[in-house]
């Protein structure tokens, strides 16, 4: 029966639809209803401000910092996480045994609490940590890891790379396992060494996995919150300020829910456009190289 098949399909997809409805569509609709008001979520009156919130957000230096910092994080995070996760996937792929155990092990940081990791990193990089004592002994001084704009950005980026490498490695691992061994055997017979095999077989055939990881990684940069919140509060001087910190600050510290929602809309638009551009670039590059 066709209708029974369709019903089964809808039933199987319903958990996703339900969660999307609850955690995405309803909040989205709620946010959109807030953006035209100057409201703190609890006051009995909500003054209508039209596009005022958008205009203010557009001019806000805080939002400008969040916007540009996202690309700063992206510049470190995306290549870093691509390299690290691909490296992990290759290591796991070539392990003689217990591949799944290692894959799960590398995935664990993804499940760890961002706050807990933040506190550990804060301890590791504190002025009197053994690591900094060591650096001071060798070089005379240690970087002000969380108080220097460049180092703070690097530290936060590395934390996120560490957290997501294992997760993205699973995607690469699935891609690697889908490459037929015969291709490598044939290439070896033709005299191709490991590096040539990697460049001519592995990388092109991993294109779909690269594409997926790239899109996920770019999107993630627009949602960074916990790490800078715990470690730097967005400082020094907004150097690690992000979209999510700004939305949180406006909505839940200054109680400006309408304005916070307007910033969230800008964040969504920036995310969408950035992913669109990256996708376009990668797809045209893939087409040129004949990867798709």
């Amino acid at each position, binding site marked *: 029966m066709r209708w029974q098949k369709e019903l089964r399909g809808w039933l199987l997809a319903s958990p996703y639809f339900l969660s999307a409805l609850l955690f995405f569509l309803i909040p989205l609709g709620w946010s959109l209803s807030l953006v035209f008001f100057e409201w703190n979520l609890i*006051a009995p009156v909500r003054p209508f401000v039209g596009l005022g919130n958008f205009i203010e957000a557009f001019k806000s230096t805080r939002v400008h910092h969040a916007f540009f910092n996202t690309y700063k994080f992206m510049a470190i995070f995306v290549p870093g996480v691509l390299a690290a996760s691909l490296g992990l996937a290759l290591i796991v792929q070539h392990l003689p045994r217990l591949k799944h155990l290692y894959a799960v092990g590398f995935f664990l940081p993804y499940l760890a609490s961002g706050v807990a990791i933040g506190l550990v990193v804060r301890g590791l990089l504190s002025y009197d940590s053994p690591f900094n004592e060591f650096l001071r002994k060798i070089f005379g001084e240690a970087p002000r890891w969380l108080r220097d704009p460049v180092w703070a950005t690097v530290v936060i980026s590395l934390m996120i790379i560490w957290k997501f490498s294992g997760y993205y490695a699973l995607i690469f691992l699935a891609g690697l396992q889908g490459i037929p061994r015969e291709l490598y055997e044939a290439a070896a017979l033709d005299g191709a060494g490991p590096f040539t095999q990697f460049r001519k077989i592995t990388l092109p055939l991993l294109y779909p996995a690269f594409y997926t990881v790239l899109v996920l990684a770019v999107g993630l940069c627009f949602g960074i919150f916990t790490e800078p919140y715990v470690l730097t*509060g967005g400082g020094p*001087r907004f150097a690690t300020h992000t979209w999510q910190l700004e939305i949180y600050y406006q909505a839940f510290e200054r109680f400006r829910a309408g304005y916070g929602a307007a910033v969230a809309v800008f964040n969504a638009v920036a995310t969408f456009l950035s992913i669109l551009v990256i996708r376009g670039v990668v797809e045209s590059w893939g087409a040129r190289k004949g990867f798709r």
Partner: protein
Amino acid sequence: MRSLAKVGLGLLVVGLGAVAQVELTFWSAPNPPQEVFWRTMANAYMALYPHVRITVSPIPETPTSEAGILAALAGGVAPTASENIFIGFGSELMRAKAVVPWNAFPGWEEFLQNRRISATIKAWEFPDGNYYIIPMYVNAMLVAWRIDILRELGYERPPRTYSEVLALGERLKSVYPDKFLWLRSELEVPTWWQRWFDFFVFYYAASKGQPVITGNSITADDEAAVGVLRFFKTLRDKKLLITEPLALGFEDGKTVMTVLGPWAFPWWRENYPELVFGKSFVLTPPPVPDWYPADEPVYTFADAKGIVLYAPATPEQQKAMWDFIRWVFADPEHDLVWIKITGMLPARDDVGTNPLFTSYVMEQEPALLPYAESIAYAVPPIAHPEFVEIQELMGLECIYPVLIGELTPEDGWSLWKTLIQGLLR
């Protein structure tokens, strides 16, 4: 048989109606000792009045109490009442009509008498003449000194003025190059409430308690504020102040001075029993400018919080909560329990004179005595509804640029005043 069952069911329904309970929820501060106190009070009250059921739980810090309460109000799951509300956030709640005035309930005057709070409560009056917050405690912020280390350096008492502090710092560095005078990594972080525990402590001391903002006007003592900024900058330049995170600091003697509230004592007792008042540390008011007369009292910042009653609660719940709160504060023994459990001083006019408290404090918690003595000189937080942005800008556009040498103390202060003008309307 069926009719018998119906009668039984009817009796059960009537019986349940007769013991209908009033359900109240009370959110305590997210500080375990405070939660213990409120649970103790609620259990004692419920034993006396079984028709009232009070559920006590800590405010969900997401990650601040204010945000947790706001989210609960917006989500329609606000408690009947909560503590841990400071006057600035209270103004915001009042403006949003999310809280109801306590003084509207019958017995308010009698309550003020019973709790001996008639003088203290005056600072908590809102512009509309109502009292939306019942003050629970007032923590005058003091400065703790590692007197054991100071003695090693030849000091018998802590320094009083900026110059004396700097001299101590230089002596400390000459003997212990790896130690610092003060760890305050938050000075480089703009988080608004951190200013309560650095700038405002020193500013009120230097300005003899001059308010920074009164109504919608800046009423700060500019000279005092600039002096504090210059003092911070000098400390940092001389490497006496460390603004990077340290694993510990004061507790393990890497630093010798810290701004301290009495909430640290229960934690110290458990984790650092070697920190003994009078032996390893002493408490003083904040350091003051050199010109400050030695015989005048020194003001400081008051970390003062209280209890609010939320508007979404039903009139029956509000009345029941008022009865509970009145019961808690009618007996000074309950305030003694508060001191014993939390180590903080209750907001009472007689906290420094009532023998019930003073005898306990002198015998058991002598470290609380300096706090009790300073309450009269402790200034509560800025009450302006834009307190978050005002204090955030102070960290961001004034303290940080001054510390790193981007702005002079005069320019930093002047910039902050200019920036907040737009908020004070």
